[in-house]
């Protein structure tokens, strides 16, 4: 199916308020780091797959028009993909297709957001809701995910502690990630549980921070890979699926479209039992409960079993399938870059370049992205082998 493609370089910026850094400078920082990571220069880049989330975050429509040159896209083929929270994943998948199709050999995928440019990211997220039905009482993403979380809790009878515990596990993992934003020494269950309730059942601890960040990945065609690196991350499977908003029988706790994406990606990657075969997963858990829901979505367990899987400790750093060694989106969420961070972290793991958050001997990894009104999902599976 198409040409084989590998990720050879990854560049990330720190997730924080970049008060000293304009948007072009932020993107340039991620891109220069990605180029340095694989020893290429901007001249080697043949095309750019650009991603950035909703315009109302920074108030810049068509941001690629302004920012592509800061990504080395001057007089190069550039297009922008925009799928909401999944955009980082969608842009990475766009980068994959640009190479796999045979059109280009070396492609940069870059995605980011500078959420601190707006007085509140929730204004931008609020405008996701339909203006005629829903925008009247929205509160951005937290309230929508609160609906999903409570549905999940009440449907399967999980108590509130599961969300908190998932949050704590991620926050503790984040201590190993130099790019994460929320790094709180000694973070524990009591600290998390004592945070204020913002959108029942979500406490402050259940939510992600607001970050500025950009992330870049360099995709290269099969025959160019070995000249650049001996530790590539081969793209083994990709999928981006969508459901809808008002479709019949929708159950917010059962993301059927994510299961579909996982099935597509596993088929491409030849994975039959993801729980056994995958070595590490990076999930877009912008809110704590989603960690459990996405376990089920990507088929690690049956519907409703996410909490039980978590209880077994399989997804802890010490478990057989660590989830979010980076701390996940719960510890750093720039939205535009977040889904690409998941892909990039997954790629770094199989490259063996994840530093203190490295899962030893990781050979097969999965990066996930979520967006829209809990209805878009992207998945990329990376392998250390073709």
């Amino acid at each position, binding site marked *: 199916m198409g040409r084989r493609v590998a990720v050879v370089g990854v560049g990330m910026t720190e997730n924080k308020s970049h008060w000293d850094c304009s948007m072009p400078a932020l993107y340039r920082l991620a891109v220069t780091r990605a180029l340095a990571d694989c020893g290429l220069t901007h001249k080697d880049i043949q095309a750019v797959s650009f991603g950035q989330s909703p315009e109302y975050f920074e108030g*810049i429509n068509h941001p690629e*028009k302004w920012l592509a040159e800061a990504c080395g896209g001057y007089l190069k083929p550039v297009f922008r993909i925009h799928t909401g929270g999944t955009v980082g994943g969608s842009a990475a998948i766009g980068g994959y297709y640009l190479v796999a199709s045979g059109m280009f050999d070396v492609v940069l995928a870059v995605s980011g957001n500078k959420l601190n440019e707006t007085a509140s990211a929730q204004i931008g997220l609020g405008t996701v809701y339909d203006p005629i039905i829903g925008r009247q009482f929205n509160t951005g993403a937290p309230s929508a995910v609160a609906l999903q979380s409570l549905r999940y809790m009440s449907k399967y009878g999980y108590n509130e502690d599961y969300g908190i515990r998932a949050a704590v596990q991620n926050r503790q993992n984040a201590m190993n990630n130099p790019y994460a934003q929320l790094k709180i020494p000694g973070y524990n269950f009591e600290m998390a549980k004592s945070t204020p309730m913002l959108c029942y059942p979500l406490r402050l601890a259940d939510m992600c921070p607001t970050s500025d960040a950009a992330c870049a990945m360099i995709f290269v065609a099969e025959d160019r890979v070995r000249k650049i690196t001996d530790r590539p991350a081969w793209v083994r499977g990709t999928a981006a699926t969508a459901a809808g908003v008002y479709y019949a029988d929708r159950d917010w706790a059962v993301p059927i479209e994510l299961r579909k994406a996982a099935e597509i990606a596993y088929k491409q990657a030849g994975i039959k039992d993801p729980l056994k075969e995958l070595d590490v997963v990076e999930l877009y858990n912008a809110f704590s409960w989603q960690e459990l829901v996405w376990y089920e979505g990507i088929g690690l367990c049956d519907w409703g079993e996410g909490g039980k899987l978590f209880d077994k400790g399989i997804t802890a750093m010490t478990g057989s399938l660590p989830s979010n060694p980076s701390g996940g989106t719960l510890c750093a969420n720039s939205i535009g870059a977040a889904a690409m961070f998941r892909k990039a972290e997954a790629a770094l793991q199989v490259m063996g370049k994840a530093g203190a958050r490295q899962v030893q001997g990781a050979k097969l990894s999965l990066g996930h992205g979520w967006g829209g009104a809990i209805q878009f999902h992207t998945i990329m599976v990376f392998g250390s082998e073709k």
Partner: protein
Amino acid sequence: MERKAAIVGWAQSPIVERDERIHKTEMIGRTVQAALDKSGLSIGDIDTVISASCDTMDGASISNVFVVESMGGFMKEESKVEEDGAYAALYAYLRLLTGHHKTALIVAHGRVDTPPQFYSWMMTDPFLLRPLGVEMVSAFALQANSYLSRYNLDERPAAKVVVKNRANGVRNPNTQVRIPISEAEVLKSPVLASPIKLADASPRSEAACALILANGDLARKITPNPVWIEGVGYNHDLYYLGHRDLARPESLARAARMAYAQAGIRNPRKETDFAEVYEPFSFSELMICEGLGLAEAGEGRKLVEKGIANLDGAYPVNASGGALCGNPIFVAGLLRMVEAARQLTGQAGEYQIKKDIRRGLVHATSGFCLQSNIVYVLGRDEAKPKPVQARKQVKDKVKKTGKAAKKAASRKPVRKKKAGRK
């Protein structure tokens, strides 16, 4: 020439200035259904859906959230390119090239929920251009003046472009402005931003458009008249207007070179037969024709002055009337592909190019002053277009591949998996 993927079906809603009686999902749903009907396919035959729409125009962040169901994207591999629909077609084409997908549906919609000035004003950076209120008309006017002063031209060639496109638009039942205009009327129309006058500018428009692409072998089963993508190129120039040479859009020349290299074209003027270009303003069409290599730099005017670009000329440009007769943002470029496909399959009716045509150029642009451009070379088979088969026969052919059946089967268990509510 290797035949990789082709346009096998399309539909558009008629371009209108503004229709406040129809919701965007209604517009999209009907257009997609019409495209499926036209090609004799069902939604189950579609592997991937790529959309193009604009958050700022729709007044809704992630504008595909609420339209994904009406465009048939439910449980499909779906993505959105926030550029003109012609870029969405490019992404769909890339997906077909990999073999992961065999059919792709491209959907673009453009509504005027806010005046388009806001769409373009929001495109500016907050530090250097936004305080000046830079938007499409004044930015393209700045470019037009650069072009005119570089080549020492007056405003008459651009007026001739308007006359030509408006005359063509009269014949196009799907377009918005269908009133002919004279050169004198163009030159007398009120100045918006010199040298752009009201008649030089494209109107404010709404429309939806759907296009279906299929892989080589499948395309022939679906339609007797596939329109092949022989080459595609796109490129992106600098953002700040003071940083680039406005009179000669370099990204356009590069996009064209990339497309021509894929299609094996050395002389586009001789090896292609017509062009459909996205000209937001009359002056742009002259520059686009030059950028595409149809005329020497500064000599785009000769195409209109000598009647070459007319519908009955040696190289018709915008036989459909172009964007000057209807410019739905995010759809106009995709419509150029549709118009070229209509011409190549002999379905353009009143505005069908009479001479024998085999290959056409399609151009679309986005950003200020032709910043980003995409160029397609579309071609039909050597033989003349065949009469369209009865719809049912076509459908049976596709079913033989087992695709539709497989899709239907794969869907059921997904629905079953969901636990009952309550």
